[in-house]
């Protein structure tokens, strides 16, 4: 228990402490106390603001798409069909593949010369042949969103499926006798009962999406998220100049943003222990 506290909180306190100084990682750069200057600088950093906006756009779109697709998947998996167990295992595949591996797999499908997705889009006439999907800011944002949705919708589906399976089937039978349509059953029975599960799944995915790093780092350097920008400052810039303190300030801001969502999440879980 103590170990968790030390390993997790000590680096965090150190990050906060470091954010009050101006220094770099290369020896010879003088360490200077600058107070909250680093935080003030953030407000005028357009690259920081852009990465913040990118992260928020990514989070909003990916979480909504994953929810819709995850719910659709969960509803299908909850129906009765042959080989349901095998299908349920199969949809876990994207979740199990390391993000860096799936990023490369999709990068190959997006390849502007030989990738299958590019070929299909060219054949459909939706894209001029040879156009690189991953070099334009908006097309690469959507390309990356597709990878993230593919990877995490199964996880969302499993959470929702667990919720679906707690709904007693008598409820549906009774409403069918009363003449309720499928859509009516869905909006009047399924959604209300499922809503606590939905809330947990949504906030949980939001926390994950806000931290996104791997996919953006690997697939493309023209769209940056907070984590990618933060790592760039901490690990690339800090070796050439006095950027480490500034990078630590960004780390603290990211921590605060995610903490707000985390607090909402823990509240909504309504923890109970006897």
């Amino acid at each position: 228990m103590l170990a968790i506290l030390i390993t997790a909180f000590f680096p965090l306190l150190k990050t906060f402490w470091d954010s009050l100084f101006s220094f770099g990682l290369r020896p010879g750069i003088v360490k200077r106390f600058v107070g909250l200057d680093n935080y003030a600088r953030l407000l005028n950093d357009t690259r920081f603001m852009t990465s913040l906006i990118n992260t928020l756009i990514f989070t909003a779109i990916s979480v909504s798409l994953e929810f819709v697709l995850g719910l659709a998947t969960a509803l299908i998996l909850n129906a009765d069909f042959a080989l349901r167990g095998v299908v349920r295992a199969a949809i876990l595949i994207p979740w199990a593949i390391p993000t860096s591996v799936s990023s490369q797999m999709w990068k190959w499908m997006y390849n502007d010369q030989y990738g299958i997705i590019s070929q299909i889009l060219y054949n459909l006439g939706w894209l001029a042949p040879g156009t690189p999907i991953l070099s334009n800011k908006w097309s690469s944002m959507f390309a990356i969103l597709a990878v993230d949705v593919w990877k995490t919708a199964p996880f969302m589906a499993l959470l929702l499926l667990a919720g679906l399976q707690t709904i007693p089937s008598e409820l549906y039978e009774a409403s069918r006798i009363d003449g309720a349509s499928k859509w009516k059953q869905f909006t009047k029975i399924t959604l209300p009962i499922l809503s606590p599960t939905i809330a947990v799944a949504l906030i949980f995915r939001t926390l994950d999406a806000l931290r996104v790093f791997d996919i953006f780092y690997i697939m493309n350097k023209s769209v940056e998220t907070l984590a990618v920008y933060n790592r760039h400052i901490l690990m690339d810039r800090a070796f050439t100049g006095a950027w480490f303190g500034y990078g630590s300030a960004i780390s603290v801001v990211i921590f605060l943003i995610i903490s707000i969502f985390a607090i909402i999440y823990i509240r909504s879980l309504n923890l109970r222990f006897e």
Partner: protein
Amino acid sequence: MNYKTKKRIEKIILYTFVIIMLIFYVFPFYYAIISSVTPNSELFSKSIKLFPKSPTFKNYILVFTERPFHQNILNSVIVAGATTILSLIFGAFAGYAVARLRMPGKVAIMSLILAVSMFPQVSILGALFQILRNMKLINTYPGLILPYIALNLPLTTWILHNFFKDIPISIEESAAIDGCSKFMTLWKIIIPLSAPGLVTTGLLTFIAAWNEFMFALTFMQLPEKYTVPVAIAMFSGKTFYELPWGQLMAAAVIVTVPLVALVLIFQNKIVAGLTAGAVKG
């Protein structure tokens, strides 16, 4: 329309959806497999390739002969394996303590554990890098295993606590009467009884450590020290412009197949663990 035709149409629609869903989730993996066995002459042609005309395993050989990929796999096995074992040991003690001991502020402690599991990793990246550098642990196995244990322990503690909680306390009381010490009780009774929980937790930890990218990228900076996800992300060709996609896909398939096998074998346990723990992916 009579009842029977209506049922039949519903079934057809359902199976159509199942097939569409399967294609969506499985196709990229299938395409990676196909690409990995397609010879370069076919691979780099401007046509849609769904089946290789003359399949070859050359890429699978090249991935091991042209780069230190076996070393990368070994690194990942060591790091993920050690992380899993140590996290299970520490997590079992912590989880047992939380599940059994009556102490004040249990909700606060569990909330704190949950909060730690939601840390944005990048927020402690810089500080951890400095600490590990001062301890001369950059490019060493412990330098990656220690942060991984810290990352995974909250989840391990959380899930194991859920399993331990469900074991009736009367079993332990009778063990105590028979003269079992607290440690012996944990070792001889609780651990065997919660074996399914340990397997589930171990699998989730292993997959998480095997897949982790940001810390591995930062703390392991030599190609022969890379873990598998970093090696694959850093894949390069002889020149900047020719990435050997066939080899890359072969590498992707090699590291994915064991995970897919684990998932298929233990899918019920994994699903139970994910939904019961439901706090971290």
